[in-house]
């Protein structure tokens, strides 16, 4: 497919549930993202070009120089969990700047914190909704700002290390901010949608 004139960001969605894959794909496409869905963490890593630790390639797929601008993954998956995938992405020098969002049907604060501490940008409570899609863009844009580094990294390791330090500081701040936001979010989630009225509120509760 030819490149669109407007930047179309590419999201990789990972979920073992077929229903949820259909849903997230539709949500993302409706929000104008290019989407690839895979059913497992392993398939995700394959797509990202990370077959084994030693042989890394930049965040382009072996196929078509497709760039992945964000990974959104379910937490509970058999084999490699979303958390495991998050760790692998963040441990990879070529993939670590790709923002990762975790989804889960369960609101477990310790789980949320663990993911945020590991570098997840955000945590969505399932079922994910259209309004959640708006929260992706800032993370993608932040990731894009780090892009020039990704391309240069093989030529200039020193630069990479310097940037890592400042990035770590930034992401720590973000984590603290997001922790607060996301802790509230699950409780608030029901409330936020209740702009429609008290009836809807009662229906949720």
């Amino acid at each position, binding site marked *: 497919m030819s490149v669109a004139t407007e930047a179309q960001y590419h999201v990789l969605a990972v979920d073992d*549930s*077929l*229903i*949820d894959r*259909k*849903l997230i794909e*539709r*949500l993302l496409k*409706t929000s104008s993202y290019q989407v690839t869905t895979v059913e497992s963490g392993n398939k995700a890593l394959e797509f990202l070009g990370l077959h084994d630790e030693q042989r890394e390639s930049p965040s382009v797929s072996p196929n078509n120089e497709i760039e992945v601008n964000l990974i959104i993954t379910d937490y*509970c998956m058999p084999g490699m969990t979303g958390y495991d995938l998050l760790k692998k992405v963040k441990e990879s020098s070529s993939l670590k700047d790709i923002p990762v969002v975790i989804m889960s*049907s369960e609101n477990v604060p310790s789980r949320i914190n663990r993911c945020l501490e590991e570098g997840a940008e955000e945590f969505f409570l*399932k*079922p994910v*909704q*259209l309004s959640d899609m708006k929260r992706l863009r800032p993370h993608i844009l932040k990731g894009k700002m780090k892009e020039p580094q990704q391309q240069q990294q093989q030529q200039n390791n020193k630069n990479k290390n310097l940037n890592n330090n400042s990035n770590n500081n930034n992401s720590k701040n973000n984590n603290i901010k997001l922790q607060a936001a996301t802790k509230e979010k699950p409780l608030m989630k029901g409330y936020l*949608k209740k702009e*429609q009225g008290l009836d*809807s509120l009662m*229906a*949720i509760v």
Partner: protein
Amino acid sequence: MEHSNLKRLVTSMKQNLFDQGYLDEQFYELENLEDDISPNFVEEVVNTYFKHSSRLMTNIERALETNPGDFHKLDSYMQQFKGSSSSIGASKLKNECLQFHEKCEQENIEGCRRSFQKVKSEHGILKQKLEAYFQLLRQVGPGDRATSSN
């Protein structure tokens, strides 16, 4: 005349499904994702859901018979079931899944069996109701669908 009656029927069917607690607002979310490019998205997802959930239920039934001590496995199947039920807005079904989960936690096999019968029953009812709803909706036609009651 006939057509507007159909539309009214579709609207009231849907309203009943909500009023009686079969569906929750997640179903509206699905409807919001339909557009000209994907005009039948909801029906497609729901069909996929019933195919998938029927298989899960067969697995649970088998597990209850052949390996009733493995509560972890039972619960794992049910978590999948609950997850996809929640994703399509199947509210009552989701709640029955929660009950089953609790029985698993208590390692109460008889409770699990009873709860599963309820899940099965609710599953069948919802399937029937949604099949009827979509059949009617198809007759109304994509261009003229009753607007979602958001």
